[in-house]
């Protein structure tokens, strides 16, 4: 008979985002701009990561009122972030009917040792990672989708590139690894052995893997697709640029035409200035270090 919230239904939903762009928005008007520009989903937040950095203090789940307004105005899926380990925020978002929860290092962690047991929820989750072990630990907890952490709110793509390359490097190593070495990989990465075997067999993560954390231009988005990512999250890059609608549309087109460099040149020709961006060595807080 009818079964809801199965692993197929959760990971299959993430499959539908592939080759697309998910955009951070802070109100209904921005959500409409994102949808009109071709976003496959929007992520509802109180502030984009660049402003969270500036504001300091404790960053929490977005206002439920704003989340509901966003859900009312767009027909595409709406995601929202909960704090790492914040079971109650996650349950509240599920109750509101959010389509996907990002248990995110961009918000201040609520638990300094444990993540949410995402298997227990009807709603699917996405989580960030910097390497294969972290990705597989999150999948073991029930994440139906993974993204690189990168360094959110910087407009600097270098950390997203580092994390994407790191995951792929470890996947490639596993593919050629003899069975007797797998238990030690499991021990060293803290990832369950069965998931390590699955990755070795598939030659990729068993769930959709997006890029996130520093994508600010169409060229950045294309770079992440060249590196083998399934799609792209753009946070501050759109609504911190000088013409969000134009930047959003250009990034969506760049993800489609990532391997057609004449098209990318055309897409990049008449762009408004991108967000300013921050050099990683100048950062006081590294959001990517949150998560266990």
């Amino acid at each position, binding site marked *: 008979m009818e079964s*809801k919230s199965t692993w197929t239904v959760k990971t299959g939903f993430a499959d*539908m985002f592939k*080759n697309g762009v998910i955009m951070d928005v802070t109100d209904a008007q921005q959500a409409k701009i994102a949808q009109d520009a*071709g976003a496959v989903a929007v992520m509802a937040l109180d502030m984009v990561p660049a402003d969270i950095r500036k504001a300091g203090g404790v960053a929490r789940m977005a206002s439920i009122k704003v989340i509901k307004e966003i859900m009312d105005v767009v027909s595409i899926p709406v995601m929202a972030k909960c704090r790492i380990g914040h079971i109650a925020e996650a349950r509240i978002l599920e109750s509101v*009917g959010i*389509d996907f929860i990002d248990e995110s290092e961009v918000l201040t962690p609520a638990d300094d040792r444990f993540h949410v047991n995402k298997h227990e929820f009807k*709603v*699917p989750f996405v989580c960030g990672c910097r390497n294969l072990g972290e990705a597989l630990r999150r999948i073991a907890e029930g994440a139906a989708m993974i993204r690189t952490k990168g360094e959110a709110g910087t407009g600097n793509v270098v950390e997203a590139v580092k994390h994407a390359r790191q995951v792929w490097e470890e996947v490639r190593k596993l593919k050629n690894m003899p069975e007797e070495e797998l238990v030690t990989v499991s021990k060293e990465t803290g990832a369950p052995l069965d998931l390590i075997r699955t990755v070795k067999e598939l030659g990729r993560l068993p769930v959709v893997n997006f890029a996130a954390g520093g994508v600010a231009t169409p060229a950045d988005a294309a770079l992440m697709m060249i590196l083998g990512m399934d799609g792209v999250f753009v946070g501050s890059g759109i609504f911190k640029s000088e013409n969000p609608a134009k930047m959003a549309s250009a990034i*969506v087109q760049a993800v489609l035409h990532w391997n057609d460099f004449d098209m990318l040149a055309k897409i990049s020709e008449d762009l408004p200035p991108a967000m300013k961006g921050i050099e990683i060595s100048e950062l006081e807080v590294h959001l990517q270090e949150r998560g266990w």
Partner: protein
Amino acid sequence: MIIGILSMQGAIEEHEAAFRKLDLTTLRVKKPVDLQSVDGLVFPGGESTTMIRLMALSGLFEPLAELIGRKKMPVYGTCAGMILLSKGVTNYSEQRCLGLIDIWVERNAFGRQIDSFEAPIMIDDLGKEAFPAVFIRAPLIRHIGPEVRLMATYRQEAIMARQDNVLVSAFHPELTGDLRIHMYFSQMVSGWRHSQS
């Protein structure tokens, strides 16, 4: 015989993998020129608003109307793909569609993601064994023209239909291991290919 996958956005790889298991060659269609080498076309699942916008920017409307509407090349739309092929969306009337099959659809007809589900359904054309259908924020067929043949229902609602060369389903066969619909469609494609030579 080459089956094109409309590759604006969405679950492209999953359809490619299904046809690969049937030993069939696929090609990603992003521009009008790509259509010259294909004998059939799949519109995958994804976000219909995203796809329609990118299709307009890529100049695909006219060549698709010519190939599918006039030359009758077979096409199969799953979920968002079904929405794109329909005449329009009952609950988002401003959404542009291609109008290549005489149906109207309701988007997100079962609700949001937490209402998504899988269920076995019966498709008479595919035999007596139930088909494992996956419905993800799925649409439903709301109005069916006289030339359209209804192929499957779920709880008395229309979920799969065919009009001549256009096949649509509200669910995702590419997310299951069952290849019968991909096989059925490939037979439509090979039939059309022979009629062209």
